[in-house]
């Protein structure tokens, strides 16, 4: 077994992807200029959030997210042992490296950290209440950004008569710059609480492991997990709409075929129209829900692809008609959570331990709603709006011949767009020919070709020399990367573990069935009843298929990944963070998933 991963400088460029570096910011790629530093670090590919090749603009949110994370660790909170996370893009894939705080500084950081983090913990509910207001305001600001084609003549009323003094060209340039600054602000908000939430969770986790050395991670997670989580709300809305359709007698409309046909039938009756109104009410905000991680412009958002929620609703109506019960067993989940807490409490042997347990559990439960809910507000709702606004901007470029289709805009780097906008604006102002129509289409075509070539090669899981033991708390908690997973990567795959695939025991139980290996959300309609879902990772918006499947296996993610959380909610076995499941398992192959032990066994050759 090798003891290190290839140097980032030794990784070959996929055939046809030469020149890929031009797609990303100069500071986001490996270079000879920082080689000594870059070669000294251990880099892992972030398959939890960015499993696919990034297009130039999509790299924006990656960079914003990671730098914001770092900033909170280093500049706001002074987390004693951990500086930030450095990032690079290699062959289109996102790589991260945790940067420890210098040994000598750790002591001095403690006091500040206690003051700053302590303030947040002591005032959590109040600050979280403010966060909810801030995030909604931010979404509102994003929604209000006016991105519109430039008019031949400015409006008399709005511009001339009002004495406004600036025109639509200025507004468009300004809107894009505000889109960027609001996107960065969004990620600042995201990390205002997240690391603290995880720190409190880790402390509680560590205590549980101390008093009960063999307690399953799962039990620890179950005691904290919320029951009414905003992340489950979109799915709950689908179920509500399915019930409404049946109860108001309009479910027949869903047999009509596609969305258009269904809507035509619905619109012919009063009940149908009120169902549509109710759908629209749910849609904002709950169907601003991505079928992926929310980090890719290609992720499909329900509200823009209404066939997705319609398909799910149709399935739910069918389940209702078959006598199924769509309700999540909320009361049962809650009662089970209380039982677990009480029983562990009974097993503690001293009053001090019971007091400490209650305190830590209490804090973990205080912070956990943010950990569970922020994902909807940031990666789903806000990102949905960002992608929409960007596509609108793309349409403007298409109209002016800069781009062939609106999504081409994501093949421009974020800082190239002000240049292109300038070109477009100046040509409109003069008027005179813009260079863009001659310049961008060829460039975009070339970049698309490169991205296609990059996609043909799977990323290496890691680069450089791994630490002897992975101890960095956030690496383990947020990315599920451990000494075990590093060793499995070095071993080159599941061959080392005797045919069984190992991962995190993320949700208990055992299930057998035929595998359905899917690589993207577009394929989720292929899943048949009783199959076992095998995917690189899952997204919260896949919730409706969890009623069909027997178990879940993912390549990436830990105990707190979406697949883990949703499977625990649905009582399905799950093994996460296997590293190789999607490349080791074929669709149709019978497998056994043991979510209690974290193993997947291939039953067919």
């Amino acid at each position, binding site marked *: 077994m090798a003891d290190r991963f290839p140097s980032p400088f030794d990784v070959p460029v996929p055939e046809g992807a030469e020149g890929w570096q031009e797609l990303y910011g100069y500071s986001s790629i490996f270079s000879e200029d920082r080689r000594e530093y870059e070669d000294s670090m251990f880099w892992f590919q972030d398959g939890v959030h960015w499993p696919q090749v990034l297009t130039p603009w999509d790299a924006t949110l990656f960079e914003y997210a990671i730098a914001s994370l770092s900033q909170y660790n280093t500049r706001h909170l002074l987390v004693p042992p951990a500086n930030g996370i450095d990032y690079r893009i290699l062959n289109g894939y996102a790589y991260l490296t945790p940067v420890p705080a210098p040994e000598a500084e750790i002591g001095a950081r403690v006091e500040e950290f*206690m003051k700053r983090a302590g303030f947040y913990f002591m005032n959590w509910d109040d600050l979280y209440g403010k966060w909810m207001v801030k995030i909604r305001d931010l979404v509102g600001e994003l929604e209000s950004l006016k991105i519109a084609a430039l008019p031949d003549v400015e409006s008399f009323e709005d511009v001339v008569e009002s004495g406004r003094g600036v025109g639509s060209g200025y507004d468009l340039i300004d809107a894009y710059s505000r889109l960027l600054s609001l996107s960065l602000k969004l990620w600042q908000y995201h990390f205002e609480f997240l690391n603290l939430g995880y720190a409190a969770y880790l402390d509680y986790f560590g205590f549980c492991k101390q008093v009960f050395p063999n307690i399953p991670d799962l039990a620890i997670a179950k005691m904290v997990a919320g029951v009414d989580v905003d992340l489950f709300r979109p799915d709950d809305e689908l179920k509500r709409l399915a019930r409404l359709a049946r109860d108001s007698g309009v479910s027949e409309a869903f047999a009509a075929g596609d969305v258009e046909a269904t809507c035509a039938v619905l619109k012919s009756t009063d009940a149908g129209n009120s169902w549509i109104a109710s759908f629209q009410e749910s849609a904002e905000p709950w169907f601003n829900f991505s079928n992926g991680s929310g980090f890719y412009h290609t992720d499909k958002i329900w509200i823009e692809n209404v066939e997705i929620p319609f398909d799910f609703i149709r399935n739910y109506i069918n389940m209702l008609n078959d006598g199924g019960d769509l309700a999540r067993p909320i009361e049962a989940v809650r009662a089970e959570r209380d039982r677990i807490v009480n029983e562990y409490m009974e097993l503690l042997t001293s009053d001090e331990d019971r007091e*400490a347990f209650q305190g830590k559990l209490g804090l973990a439960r205080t912070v956990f709603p943010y950990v569970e809910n922020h994902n909807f507000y940031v990666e789903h709702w806000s990102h949905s709006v960002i992608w929409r606004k960007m596509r609108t901007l793309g349409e403007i470029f298409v109209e002016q011949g800069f781009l062939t289709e609106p999504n081409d805009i994501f093949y421009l780097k974020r800082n190239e767009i002000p240049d292109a906008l300038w070109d477009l604006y100046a040509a409109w102002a003069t008027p005179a020919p813009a260079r863009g129509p001659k310049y961008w289409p060829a460039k975009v075509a070339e970049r698309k070709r490169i991205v296609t070539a990059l996609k043909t090669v799977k990323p290496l899981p890691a680069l450089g020399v791994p630490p002897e033991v992975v101890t960095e708390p956030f690496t383990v908690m947020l990315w599920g990367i451990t000494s*075990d997973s590093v060793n499995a990567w070095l071993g080159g795959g599941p061959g080392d573990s005797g045919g069984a695939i190992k991962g995190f025991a993320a949700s208990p139980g055992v299930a057998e069935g035929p595998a359905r290996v899917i690589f993207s959300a577009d394929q989720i309609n292929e899943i048949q009843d009783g199959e076992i879902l095998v995917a690189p990772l899952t997204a919260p918006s896949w919730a409706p298929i969890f009623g069909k499947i027997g178990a879940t296996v993912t390549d990436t993610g830990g105990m707190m990944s979406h697949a883990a959380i949703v499977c625990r909610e649905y009582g399905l076995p799950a093994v996460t963070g296997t590293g190789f499941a999607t490349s080791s398992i074929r669709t149709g192959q019978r497998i056994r998933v043991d979510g209690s032990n974290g193993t997947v066994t291939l039953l067919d050759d």
Partner: protein
Amino acid sequence: MSSITWFESYWAGIKHEMGGKAASLGEMMGAGLPVPPGYAITTVAYASARDAGDIDAKIAHHLDGLDIRDTDDVTRRCALIRDHIRTMEIPADLERDIRTAYDVLSARSGVADVPVAVRSSATSEDSPDASFAGEHDTYLWVRGGDDVIDAVRRCWASLFTDRATCYRVEMGYDHRTVEMCVVVQKMVRPKSAGVAFTLNPIDGDRSQVAIDSAWGFGEGVVSGEITPDNFLVDKVIREIGRRIISTKECEFRLSDHDTVEKVPLDPERASAPSLTDNEIKAIAVLARTAEKHYGCPQDIEWAVDADLPDGQNVILLQARPETVWSKKVPAARASATSGDFMSSIVSTLMSPLYSRDSAGSSEKK
């Protein structure tokens, strides 16, 4: 007032009809601690047999003018009484009830003429003399209604051992007030058996049940002659966190002449798990129930009965307090008890506790 009481129908109000042993079996059953199934032939039954068999008169006759210092004479007279009881007619309805109960037990076990243990259960609280009964009053591997009836009568007869009889005479107790209950209980025929601790014996973790298990009777596990399978189960979420399957080279099983013998196993069976997951979980639940019932960590012996249906086949044989870890004073928890919650969070972030090797992946190995 009934002649036959199944263990599961026991309640405190009928304790006086049951005797100590039968009452404790009933109490355990009621507490969710499944002992081998069976029933008590109560003091009511003995009383009706005694009345019908006119035993009191026989006793009075045989003991008339007894000198308890004449041990030969005591032995002779007591033997006559016991012979009488062993051969007396039992009232037809009582005999039918005993046979019916035995047939029900056989049916529940899925075995015709199920082997049972028949033993006396004295009502010692009321009549201390009765505690002398019981020296030779246990009959194992009894099969068939006739033999059960015979064993029951032998138990009743054991009230009149030389020692018990002399004691009553000496103390001036009336032989007619002596009462006796008899227990009929399925002999366990273990598919597998072993021990369980209600804590992890390696680190004292009280959230775990540690199970050692091997094929057949538990003798080999208890004595250490067999390296058992080992399982670690979380008490609360009942997940099996660790399973070590050993090569169990032999098993203890029942011979043709009702003794336990050690036999070698073929390699396939030797290396197969001696418990299913459901059985492992049932043993863990049983161990935890015993711990709760007795109020302290327990060390239990259990068996999985080969005859009983799934879900009822995990049987408690014995429970006693665990002594090693229970006496230890828990180590001080540095992060739990010192300082405020922020110091604890800081030390959590600083310590490598949450490296996967120490934290969660014991089950991944």
